[in-house]
């Protein structure tokens, strides 16, 4: 009976020991065996079932994947004294779990250290840089002339020039500067990025006012441009009208002139045959043209009167 009873007891005891000695490292994890607080052996990075001494050793697990870090939003003055709000984000990986365990213990510890380091690096770099440099990137390709053309605002050429470093370069600088301190923490920093940049509220109001003024000047320009173009078109129209009219006038006069000349030639040719008869002929024609109630003066010795007298005598 005692033999029968002890069998399950022993089995359970063995099971407990075995279960305590076995541990599973997940695909996402890496582990370190710690014996009485002292790390033993290498990092266990192979996922699967592993064994350790039961009870005396314990496993500390660390994530093996890329981890995200999001910085505090901090107010930083740029080199140009504009106060901006910068929000950075970074990705890191626990590259050396042993070192990580010794220096920061866990992720919460790591996070506070990252806060300190990355924020201060970001602060250093932003405060030593003009705002344009942070906003624009190295592949900046804005054509100033085109904008002046389009918007019609006189711009300071330098206000839109290509940044010397640009955002990408600044981010790389942040990464380099922050990475320098990382080996001591067992962390590998993969990237540091500026997530957000904005003006602080008071500056924002000013910038908005500037934008409003800028827009209004553009609107004003559009209006006067409209008036200008309109006048130009009307002027062109006037020019065109005068051209059309004068050309027509010229053409008409030319035609008339030619016809007159032609007529003159014809008359000349015909009447030239007998100038004396022509005068007579024309005189008679002009008598025909006399109007009603006109007064005809006839000299007493003219042919007409002579004929009149001769008829009376008859």
């Amino acid at each position, binding site marked *: 009976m005692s033999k029968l009873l002890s069998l*399950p007891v022993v*089995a*359970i005891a063995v099971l407990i020991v075995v279960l305590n000695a076995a541990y599973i490292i*997940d695909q*996402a994890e890496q582990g370190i065996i710690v014996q009485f607080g002292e790390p033993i052996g290498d990092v266990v990075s192979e996922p699967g*079932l592993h064994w350790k001494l039961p009870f005396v050793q314990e496993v500390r697990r660390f*994530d093996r*994947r*890329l*981890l*995200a870090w999001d910085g505090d939003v901090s107010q930083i003055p740029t080199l140009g004294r504009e106060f901006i709000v910068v929000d950075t*984000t970074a*990705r890191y990986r626990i590259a050396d779990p042993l070192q990580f365990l010794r220096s920061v213990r866990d992720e919460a510890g790591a996070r506070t250290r990252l806060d300190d380091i990355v924020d201060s690096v970001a602060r250093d770099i932003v405060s030593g840089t003009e705002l*344009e440099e942070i*906003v*624009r990137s190295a592949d*900046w390709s804005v054509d100033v002339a085109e904008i002046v053309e389009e918007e019609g605002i006189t711009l300071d050429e330098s206000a839109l020039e290509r940044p010397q470093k640009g955002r990408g370069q600044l981010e790389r600088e942040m990464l380099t500067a922050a990475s320098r301190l990382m080996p001591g923490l067992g962390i590998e920093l993969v990237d540091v*990025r500026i*997530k*957000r*940049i*904005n003006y602080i509220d008071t500056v*924002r109001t000013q*910038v*908005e006012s500037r*934008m*409003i003024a800028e*827009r*209004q000047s*553009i*609107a004003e320009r*559009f*209006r006067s*441009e*409209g008036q200008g*173009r*309109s*006048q*130009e*078109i009307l002027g062109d*129209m006037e020019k*065109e009208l005068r051209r059309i009219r004068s050309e*027509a006038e010229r053409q*008409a006069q030319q035609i*008339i002139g030619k016809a007159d000349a032609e*007529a003159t030639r014809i*008359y000349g040719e*015909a*009447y030239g045959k*007998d100038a004396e008869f022509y005068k007579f002929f024309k005189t008679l024609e002009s008598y*025909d043209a*006399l109007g009603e*109630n*006109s007064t*005809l003066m006839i*000299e*007493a010795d003219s*042919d007409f*009167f002579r004929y009149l007298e001769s*008829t009376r005598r008859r």
Partner: protein
Amino acid sequence: MVRGKDWLEKALIGKGWHERATGRASAGGNGGSPPGPPRRSRFDASPRHLGVGVALIVVLWGLFSCVYTVQPEERAVIKRLGRVVGIADPGLHFRLPFGIDTVQFVATERVLKQEFGFRTERGEDEEGRSRYAQGDYTSESLMLTGDLNIIVAEWVVQYRIADPIKFLYAMREPTRTLRDLSESVMRRVVGNRIGSDVLTVGRVEISNTARDEIQEAMDKYDNGIHIITVELQDVVPPPRVQPAFNEVNEARQQRERMINEANKQANQAIPRAEGEANRLVSEAEGYATERVNRALGEADRFNSVLVEYRGAPEVTRSRMYLESLRRTLPRVGTVLMVQDGQVPPLPLLNLRDAQPRRPARQPEEGQQ
């Protein structure tokens, strides 16, 4: 599966439940048979029933946990003792029970979406449109343009989990990283252009550039996310500046209107003037034709008369003169005779009005 059953049996044997369970199974057929019941005490029956119950539960649990279904839009990542061993396609699958095999489902076929600057809420409003959350997300959408102006841009990132293993095991928070990166990239792209460009013509290019850059970052992290598209939604100036932007638009319209009106006026006047010009020319041509024709006619007439005249000059001359007078005199009001050395006709002119018709007849009578 086989290995799983062995393991199960060993566990049962180890705990001494197996024999009891099989004993129960053999006696189970005649649970209510006469030999048993009178001898059974409470002490005897309780552990046996308990054992059987536990064994049944364990067996059922084992059986149920061996089976899982993968939905059509999903893939399942199978981990055996923490190590990834494979991916299961949609359908019914078996696995090792008791947490030896664990399965994680990842919706790889579904198009997932992240919204920036706004949130669509589940459900629709009464007119069937999407509902948008009322919250303030301007911190996401407010950004700086290259000319250091402020702009509010809302956008959507659509993505798909292309590689479930990478998605689960390359990063701890891949979707959060996607969010952070999207914000970062969008601000970079918008910051690399001037405001008016972002508001008008640059939209498509911004979307494309942002998509490519976010994908590039995801590839660098190797987190199995495939970006399908980045769509810019509302891109507007900050609320306070909006009226000024509208003013510009109005002014632009106004400019167009003024130009159009001037053009209209010109378009009215010029064709008309052209018509008038053509008329002038045509009239001149008409005059010219008339003039030349008349000249030709008159010349012909003169020539004809001249020919006749030359035949008998004196007679013709007199005849023409008299004929002409005959035609003329009836219409002439007053005929004055003037003789050299006599009183000039001036005083007589006043009398003409006093006796208008009378003198007109005098020459007619004279003719006869």
